[in-house]
């Protein structure tokens, strides 16, 4: 399981019943991994994440029952909770398992190959001079993996995923986050195929994004 399996983007573009998502899914209720509690789905489906964490009057309240006041507060129990296959009471195990992956990853996996083949401990420690600029995280996000506790590593991961989630915004102008004319709301295929002549030019879409 990963966040993206429930918060989809361009993966299903070429599927007949699919289409572009703004980090949401296609289910009535998002399926969760099987465990002995018998649960098969989350209470709801995954909502879109684009613009979901914009600051707002009265403060941020995430999940539809207003469970969490910040993105990081949501992310920690998500990584250590039922969506990631952990039962209530297993969060200490979840945290130490996540920290173990960060410590032991050697950058050889298929995901790492899309991110410079750097082991997590190198990326999160952030001080190795050989880290290319695009992967060198700023100091406030770093954690010294060799000496950090499990909880410190877990917090650092939550902060990075928060940064990523909070970076998901529709276009804005100086008056605020309201711009989304219909032409832009259908940004999906158009954007991937035609509008962006930069690093997306000529790249295959969907299918190849994730498989």
């Amino acid at each position, binding site marked *: *399981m*990963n966040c*993206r*399996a429930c918060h*989809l*983007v*361009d993966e*299903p573009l070429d599927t*007949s*019943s*699919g289409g572009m998502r703004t980090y949401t*899914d*296609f*289910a*009535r209720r*998002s*399926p969760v*991994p*099987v465990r002995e509690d018998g649960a098969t789905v989350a209470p709801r489906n995954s909502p879109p994440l*684009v613009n979901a964490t914009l600051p707002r009057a009265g403060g941020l309240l995430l999940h539809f029952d207003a469970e969490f006041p910040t993105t990081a507060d949501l992310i920690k129990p998500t990584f250590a909770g039922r969506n990631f296959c952990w039962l209530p009471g297993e969060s200490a*195990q*979840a945290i130490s*398992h996540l920290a*173990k*992956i960060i410590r032991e*990853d*050697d950058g*050889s*996996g298929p*995901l790492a190959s*899309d*991110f410079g083949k750097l082991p997590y401990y190198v*990326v999160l420690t952030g001080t190795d001079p050989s880290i290319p600029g*695009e*992967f060198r*995280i*700023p100091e406030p*996000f770093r954690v010294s993996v060799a000496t950090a506790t499990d909880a410190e590593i877990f917090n650092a991961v939550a902060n*990075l*995923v928060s*940064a*990523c*989630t909070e*970076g*998901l915004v*529709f*276009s*804005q*102008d100086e008056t605020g986050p309201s711009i989304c004319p219909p032409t*832009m709301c259908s*940004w999906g295929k158009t*954007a991937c195929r035609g509008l*962006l*002549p*930069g*690093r997306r030019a000529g790249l295959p879409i969907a299918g*190849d*994004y*994730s*498989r």
Partner: protein
Amino acid sequence: MRFTNEHLSLPSLCVTFLALLSGNGSFAIPSPVLAQDIEEAGDPSEIVIGERLFLETRFAQFFKQFVDRGGMTNQPFPTGDPVMNTTVTVGEPFPGPFAGY
């Protein structure tokens, strides 16, 4: 197998749209040069690495079960979590983008 095409989908797109919208304040014909410049600037590194973590499948308890059975952190997963095999829709499911993970 590729997890991503380029490092980020939306933040990059949004930055580009912002660029396309700025200037005279109206929705203009996209300028390829401007879009390219912005695209090449790339996303902040914390967002890039945050996305890698957003895509990471090994944090799940399903992978812990594999480790408990003697699996290693960097060893390819023999069989992924079955919940990832399909993407559920209100109609027919389609193949899950992370099947096998």
